[in-house]
């Protein structure tokens, strides 16, 4: 700890407040008691699909095609998840097998 307890506390408090702000701003801008503009309703309906896509890429952002070990574990695991999920449609099975496969690859193959 290089900061004092008070300094640490202030920093953590600010991070907590700013994090909450990024979550609450849409709800402040478009409160329940006012009619939400049609365009915002539209965005609210389509954004979940786009956001999850963005989140998937966000998780894969550090892969690199310069070296095999930097892309193979992610790409192979994601492909296997897609195949298993298309086949069995079982969320826990797809997530479980995909994660175990990834762990095996990074621990034993792409060390």
């Amino acid at each position, binding site marked *: 700890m290089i900061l004092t307890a008070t300094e640490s506390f202030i920093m953590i408090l600010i991070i907590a407040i700013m994090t909450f702000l990024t979550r609450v701003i849409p709800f402040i801008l478009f409160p329940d008691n006012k009619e939400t503009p049609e365009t915002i309703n539209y965005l609210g309906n389509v*954004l979940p699909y786009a956001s999850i896509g963005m989140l998937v890429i966000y998780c894969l952002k550090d892969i690199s095609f310069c070296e095999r070990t930097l892309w193979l574990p992610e790409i192979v695991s994601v492909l296997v998840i897609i195949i298993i999920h298309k086949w069995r449609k079982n969320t826990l099975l797809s997530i479980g097998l995909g994660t175990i496969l990834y762990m095996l690859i990074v621990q034993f193959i792409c060390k």
Partner: protein
Amino acid sequence: MRKKAFKAALPMTIPVLTGYLFIGIAFGILANSNGYHLGWILLMSTFIFAGSMQFVAISLLASGFNILSVILITIMINARHLFYGLSMLDRFKNMGKKKPYMIFSLTDETFSLLCGVDPPGGVNKDWFYFYIALLNHIYWILGSLVGGLLGSLITFNTQGIEFVMTALFVVIFLDQWEKNKDHSPAIIGILSSIICLIIFRAENFILPSMILIMTLLLIFKTTIRLEDEQ
């Protein structure tokens, strides 16, 4: 009513349980090694409750007292929450006293579960959503405390376990894909992010991606047709 909602919510959160426990443990270990012990860990995991942000918080705390840079970095890292809020405006409507907590606890993982799972018939949806958020929050706090307390005692190799979150997002992406014939919003999300990742690199691509996604969604407003929404 609550019991039924709890029982329905619990199995949905199992992937997040796995992910949060292990990522929480990793966070606890990191915090501990920087001199932030249990009380601090509890404070951060309870009141910040944002996975990637908390890892960054530790390095911010280790780099000195600088309020302005903390504010800017927090906004940059958490900007994607704006999309989550916009997506949940309708769903959190009329949630009454639960609403502030739902907003506070809107992490990537809770958001993706709220997008991806529907309450089974006969289950009160507000309580169902609430329990998903609450359970996830509890897993996160527990994981980070365990990490702070006895993380160094874990002996089996957990390398790669964090991939459980990626797997969860991929599966929810696939479920959403199946739900609609019009895939353009999903494609816009993926392609915009890839394009911006290539141009702006991993550290800076989220904000440009959000702008591009928003722009494209608005451009194609008249052609996109979602079936499960009116």
